């Protein structure tokens, strides 16, 4: 079971110069030899706690461990803080648990377990591993909850401990669950590691103490890649001007630099876009509040705008001033008949952040599973548990809101003004969702990254607070960005060919939220970032720190692994571009071809209602009238727009709408189920499709090359023809995330029983056939 230890070294050699190999600094810290050999193994451990770990298994594992040295890899600037030896990591395997001895360490970047279970990965698979975060590494920001097991009871751990647990259970924000048994660890080491881990993951932190800065300082001299290669950063006036040009919004909107140096407002980026008639003084009037800020322009000239609310005033005269101001500002985007605007107040008529927080905390518990029993117990009531978390319903509401907004922009030719207190949570969510649906550019990797940069990073979404990176307030922790990714996942899942990126891309992006070497998700605003990297201050430091952006995927993944991030079936031919530019004219044509448009179907409905209303009521009874009512609900514009779009074949390079019906909103299985061994489909899942596709595409390319090389010598052609196509091994559905859980070859059998049938009980007791068997 332990596997061959030799293989693990191969993976580490792959690390780039950026992340040098650093051996453990503490003398004698290597696992094994003295410590383990003399320790728990020979005295047969009393199995009161890890009763499921059979002594002989521990023994086997230990023998291998003694032959092996496991090195701790530290990033530049990373420091070892505390460690403990002879820690037993419990893993689920073939529905029984086993333990792996190793060393548990805590650095200022991560918690890491150094055992020998990184074994038996063939070279091909190590190429898919994350280069920064290993399978047994947990960044400090990724830790969600820590539990201790005391006498078989699980308790949350925080603050100073009086008693130290036998077992440490760590729930991660990427939904991994680690079980570390400390029974065979020396007492003082237990104290040190447990209190160390608790302190470093849970105590409030200062921004300046983020690992981000130590890393950037230490890696100062490494060559930085140009972030502009990966996304438009929107930190210059030009970026905004180009975006205006791209969306043809430059007629009505202008990029302004009034906030350069954050003179006006610290919430807003240095550069942004406002309606052209707006005066720069107006922006300063309420420090940028109450000003429509441009997000995106539709092909028909309508724009999506966002606005933060004006401060609430008690004073009558002040509120009169505010009202006058608002009215005047509103007229810059609402000038009938030329231009009309609709205001969408996201603070009052939509989701609340608390709802999102509550839903997600319930939802994630469904995946933080401690053992098989829990898995199968929750399996029986899975759907109702899912529903009671209401996470999927929240996703539906977000998608629906975006469709509503699109309907305004596209079908009603109205500007849409999104309103929120700070315009930095739901505004980001809804406006970027709308853009993903309307703008095919946002469905490319580059475009999507630019979108996140524009709406979220520059839009001042408080990543630091919303992810609770500094552990300062649990109340502020709301997974708004994750909700956005989940919504995008629904779209990717429903319309795969429309996206250049895959669900794996979204999953690794969600993981990157917790890796503090990238600056992207570790500031509350561009102002805060600039203040802290020394861009604005005249510090003694010679040049500002060079922070990495998450968009450079080569930091985390080898080229081979990066192939899993892009969609081989992406429909990229922008054939429709010309047609799209025709704008309203084109739209009109499309509407006429709809079978469900108002103009065509209403006369029939009218006929039906007049002539047969009484018939329905009197003759046909309830069942029929139910059917009729359901068809009448189609009347409103939203339904018509939505149904109209879905009745046509989707155009992947145009407007893309999600399905919103109950069965169509699904659980993002890859992200949420990937660490659960019971849920792994050996040889199946989406990865099977993906690898099959990559195989086919590789083959097509090979053939194409062959044809191009036809003028070359005949032997070459002959020789190549003989080479067999690459065959993919049996990957598990958890690939590329949980590489290690793959050796199981037995099926996972459900253990839970059958739930009561309730009212069907009498049916269950009935005979299959009404035949008397007695006379046989």
């Amino acid at each position, binding site marked *: 079971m332990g596997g061959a230890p030799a293989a693990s070294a191969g993976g580490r050699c792959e690390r780039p110069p950026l992340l040098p190999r650093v051996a453990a600094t503490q003398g004698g810290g290597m696992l094994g030899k003295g410590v383990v050999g003399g320790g728990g193994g020979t005295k047969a451990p009393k199995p009161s706690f890890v009763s499921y770990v059979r002594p002989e298994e521990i023994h086997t594992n230990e023998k291998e461990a003694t032959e092996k040295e496991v090195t701790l890899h530290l990033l530049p600037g990373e420091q070892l803080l505390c460690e403990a030896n002879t820690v037993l990591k419990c893993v689920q395997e073939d529905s029984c648990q086993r333990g792996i001895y190793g060393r548990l360490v805590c650095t200022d970047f991560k918690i890491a377990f150094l055992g020998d279970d990184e074994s038996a990965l063939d070279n091909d698979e190590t190429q898919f591993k994350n280069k920064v975060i290993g399978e047994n590494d947990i960044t400090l920001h990724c830790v969600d909850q820590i539990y201790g097991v005391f006498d078989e009871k699980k308790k949350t751990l925080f603050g100073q401990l009086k008693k130290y647990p036998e077992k440490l259970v760590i729930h991660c924000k990427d939904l991994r669950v680690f079980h570390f048994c400390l029974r065979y660890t020396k007492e003082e080491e237990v104290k040190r590691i447990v209190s160390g881990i608790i302190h470093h993951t849970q105590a409030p932190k200062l921004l300046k103490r983020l690992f981000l800065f130590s890393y950037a300082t230490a890696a100062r001299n490494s060559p930085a890649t140009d972030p502009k290669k990966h996304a438009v950063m929107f930190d210059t006036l030009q970026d905004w001007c180009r975006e205006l040009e791209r969306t043809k919004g430059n007629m009505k909107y202008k990029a302004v630099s009034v906030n350069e140096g954050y003179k006006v407002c610290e919430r807003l980026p240095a550069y942004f876009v406002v309606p052209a008639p707006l005066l720069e003084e107006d922006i300063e009037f309420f420090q940028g509040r109450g000003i429509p800020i441009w997000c995106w322009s539709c092909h028909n000239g309508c724009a999506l705008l966002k606005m933060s609310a004006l401060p609430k005033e008690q004073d009558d005269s002040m509120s009169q001033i505010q009202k006058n101001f608002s009215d005047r500002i509103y007229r810059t985007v609402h000038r009938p008949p030329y231009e009309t605007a609709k205001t969408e107040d996201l603070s009052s008529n939509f989701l609340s952040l608390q709802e999102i927080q509550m839903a997600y905390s319930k939802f994630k518990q469904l995946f933080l599973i401690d053992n098989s029993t829990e898995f199968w117990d929750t399996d*029986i009531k899975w*759907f109702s548990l899912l*529903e009671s978390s209401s996470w999927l319903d929240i996703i*539906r509401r977000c998608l629906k809101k975006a469709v509503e907004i699109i309907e305004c922009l596209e079908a009603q030719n109205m500007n849409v003004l999104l309103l929120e207190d700070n315009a930095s949570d739901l505004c980001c969510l809804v406006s970027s969702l709308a853009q993903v649906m309307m703008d095919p550019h946002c469905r490319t990797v580059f475009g999507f990254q630019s979108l996140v940069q524009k709406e979220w990073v520059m839009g001042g979404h408080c990543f630091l607070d919303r992810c609770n990176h500094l552990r300062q307030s649990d109340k502020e922790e709301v997974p708004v960005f994750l909700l956005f990714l989940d919504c995008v996942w629904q779209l990717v899942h*429903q319309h795969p*060919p429309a996206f250049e990126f895959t669900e794996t891309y979204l999953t690794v992006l969600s993981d990157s939220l917790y890796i503090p070497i990238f600056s992207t998700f570790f500031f509350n605003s561009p102002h805060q970032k600039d203040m802290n990297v020394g861009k604005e201050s005249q510090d003694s430091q010679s040049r500002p720190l060079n922070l990495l952006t998450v968009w450079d995927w080569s930091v985390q993944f080898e080229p081979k692994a990066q192939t899993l991030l892009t969609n081989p079936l992406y*429909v990229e031919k922008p054939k429709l571009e010309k047609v799209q530019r025709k704008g309203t004219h084109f739209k009109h044509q499309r509407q006429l071809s709809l*079978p469900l448009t108002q103009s*065509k179907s209403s006369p029939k*409905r009218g006929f*039906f209602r007049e002539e*047969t209303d009484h018939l329905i009521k009197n003759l*046909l009874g309830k069942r029929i009238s139910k*059917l009729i009512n*359901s*068809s009448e609900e189609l009347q409103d514009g939203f339904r018509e727009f939505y*149904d109209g779009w879905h009745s046509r074949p*989707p155009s992947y390079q145009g407007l893309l709408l999600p*399905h*919103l*019906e*109950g*069965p169509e909103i699904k659980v993002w299985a890859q992200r949420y189920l990937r660490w659960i061994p*019971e*849920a792994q*489909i050996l*040889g*199946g899942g*989406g990865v*099977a*499709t993906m690898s*099959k*596709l990559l195989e*086919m*595409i590789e083959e*097509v390319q090979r*053939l194409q090359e062959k*044809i191009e090389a*036809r003028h070359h010598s*005949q032997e070459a052609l002959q020789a190549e*023809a003989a080479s067999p*196509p690459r065959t993919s091994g049996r990957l598990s*559905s958890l690939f590329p995330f949980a590489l290690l859980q793959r050796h199981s070859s*037995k*099926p*996972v*059998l*459900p253990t839970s*029983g059958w*739930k009561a049938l309730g009212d*069907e009980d009498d*049916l269950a*007791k009935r*005979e*299959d*056939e*009404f035949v008397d*068997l*007695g006379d*046989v």
Partner: protein
Amino acid sequence: MEKSSSCESLGSQPAVARPPSVDSLSSASTSHSENSVHTKSASVVSSDSISTSAENFSPDLRVLRESNKLAEMEEPPLLPGENIKDMAKDVTYICPFTGAVRGTLTVTNYRLYFKSMERDPPFVLDASLGVISRVEKIGGASSRGENSYGLETVCKGIPNESWRITKVNERYELCDTYPALLVVPANIPDEELKRVASFRSRGRIPVLSWIHPESQATITRCSQPMVGVSGKRSKEDEKYLQAIMDSNAQSHKIFIFDARPSVNAVANKAKGGGYESEDAYQNAELVFLDIHNIHVMRESLRKLKEIVYPNIEETHWLSNLESTHWLEHIKLILAGALRIADRVESGKTSVVVHCSDGWDRTAQLTSLAMLMLDGYYRTIRGFEVLVEKEWLSFGHRFQLRVGHGDKNHADADRSPVFLQFIDCVWQMTRQFPTAFEFNEYFLITILDHLYSCLFGTFLCNSEQQRGKENLPRRTVSLWSYINSQLEDFTNPLYGSYSNHVLYPVASMRHLELWVGYYVRWNPRMKPQEPIHNRYKELLAKRAELQKKVEELQREISNRSTSSSERAGSPAQCVTPVQTVV
């Protein structure tokens, strides 16, 4: 079930003049939406080009597809042998999705056809009479065509030293619901088989379904033993099971899987049935799989229909789905099949599977276990063989379960057992998207023709009855229709799995409602066809390039003087697209 809506005659016209055998059209529980018609006509276009390459396709059926193009008439396009029984004008059809439409309703001896020219494109509703569950049905299609029954049902490698083929049931005297040929342990003579038969309900003795090519572990199927309240025993039956165990040298144990919940198995004793006691059957271990009976399944499907038709309630969708228990049943069936496959594969142990009569749950379990264990059954032809073998020849009572030709729609013998099996297969194809040669459309087509009565495949209850009715002569087989246009039913991603044992995960987390089947009439639910087309394009591209390479190669070898040696090789290299991977 799945499709239903109401077709009502409205207005002052006398309600549809009743055709001879249709009792009443009000509340006919059948319909297609506009949507279905669109997809149908789309397939016509594509299949026309294919039909030229179809060799063994009967000419009659080709007419069916071409005649679909007659768009402008209010009369339905007719199949060979189909004739109009009655027609009524000014009938209003209430479509739950788009409102009322007025048009002409026609009834033929095959279908119910409604067409309205009020809309553009014309609104068409076309349902074969067989799908109607609550109107009296007219018996099967009489289209005569080529006879292509007779898929072989004998296992590979039989007889071997432990198993033999017996003709004891040649005249269906041993068991009228079993096929004429049976495979039984070699050392049990026919005389003893008869005594075993008397101890098994309806004479359904344990017979071989599948044998593991390496370990010789077997899957055998039968009905419950007639133990009764008194706990009767049968020496011959015990010896028989011992013989099954002995035929597999790898294991000294045999597993008996009783598909029922143990409570029901016990309750069956009162009726003379029951289960094997471990005392009587040495080395046997009895496992109950807790799968419920046909009545529970029927009720579950009824509830399912209620939550998906005509509208889906968004907010309570998940708890509504859970309350139907449909996926729970699917999970239990899959879990049962998993246990069986695991015993055979990892345990190298032979298994005996039965429920009460051994033609519902047993068929589900054995056929699913075989799908997991044997890649052959995951091909199109293999799956056809599987259905012919485990379902048709071993006497799943299709007529009774579907209710063809029976007006009693509340008949308790009706149950969606076969549908449930196909749903399980669909769930497996979802979990292993590259492991099956067939696609979703194949499964849907099978189900459509389970009800359509266009083909003789699913008529009658047993091989004996089908023989008596002379169905192989009088009807066309569904398989010949499918095999004549394989391309439509092929999964473009198929490959590289044939030798693997597949274990699906029987967890609710991986099961989902088969929207493409149960909710396909809802116009808001669209199948994800385009993505499949992308796969197909890719395959086509590869095939094209492959051809190019072959040509170049041939050209080169022609140019070189020693071409004679290689003359045969290029042709061999041209591998069919589906099999090369």
